[in-house]
């Protein structure tokens, strides 16, 4: 590989890594705020807790398509040689799952749900990225 291409790659890795870092901490701040805000309770229960009566039930879905940043893919290539946990992807998937859960929560809140039952999380690889979906049954209570 010529020197220019190598340097260009390194610059992309550093720029991508730094920008990615900032974007990540900002996203985590937003996630923490949204998770602490009042709204529907997210569960993977199959039944309503005793004493609650349903007035309306409907499907809710939240989804995210994510791409890994250059620095992570680079580091990932090294880690895949030695095996073990793929740590640089953990935060990406974690953010994706929490973000799709918050979107699910927003959709449920828009329809007046107090609780969401039977939440399922699925991840699918699509090209250079992954799609994470969270779906469940939102329940609007009678009282």
């Amino acid at each position, binding site marked *: 590989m010529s020197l220019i291409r190598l340097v260009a790659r390194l610059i992309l890795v550093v720029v991508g890594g730094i920008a990615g870092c900032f974007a990540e901490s900002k*996203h985590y701040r937003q996630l923490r705020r949204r998770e602490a805000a009042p709204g529907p309770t997210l569960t993977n229960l199959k039944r309503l807790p005793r004493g609650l009566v349903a007035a309306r039930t409907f*499907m809710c879905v939240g989804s*995210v398509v994510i*791409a890994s940043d*250059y620095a992570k893919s680079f580091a990932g290539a090294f880690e895949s040689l030695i095996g073990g946990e793929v740590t640089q992807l953990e935060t990406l998937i974690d953010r994706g799952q929490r973000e799709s859960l918050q979107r699910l929560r927003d959709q449920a809140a828009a329809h007046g749900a107090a609780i969401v039952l039977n939440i399922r999380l699925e991840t699918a690889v699509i090209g250079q990225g992954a799609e994470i979906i969270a779906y469940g049954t939102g329940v609007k209570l009678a009282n």
Partner: protein
Amino acid sequence: MLLSNLKNPPGFRITKHVGLVIGNTIRAKHIGTDIVAGLKNVVGGEITGYTELLSESRNQAIKRMANSAKRAGANGIVNVRLGTAMLMGGAAELYAYGTAVVVEAEQADVAD
């Protein structure tokens, strides 16, 4: 049409199981979105173009499943499951499947 990923949605009684219904869509890549995705690969994070595209397709797949159920004489679908699969050529298939049922509301004062 009642849609739920529960086997027994609260507030409803299932009177008849009609059968399995499926809805799916296949979405091809979009050149413009792909270019943005390539750029996003440098910074990392969400590819909003694709999220919207796939979300739309998923809603279409769910609608097709609901239409199948309606044609079969059902008024609800329970145990709905969603999935995404990547196909050759970079296309993605989004599918939804569930059990079409005839339901009735359990109490007189339950809406919908």
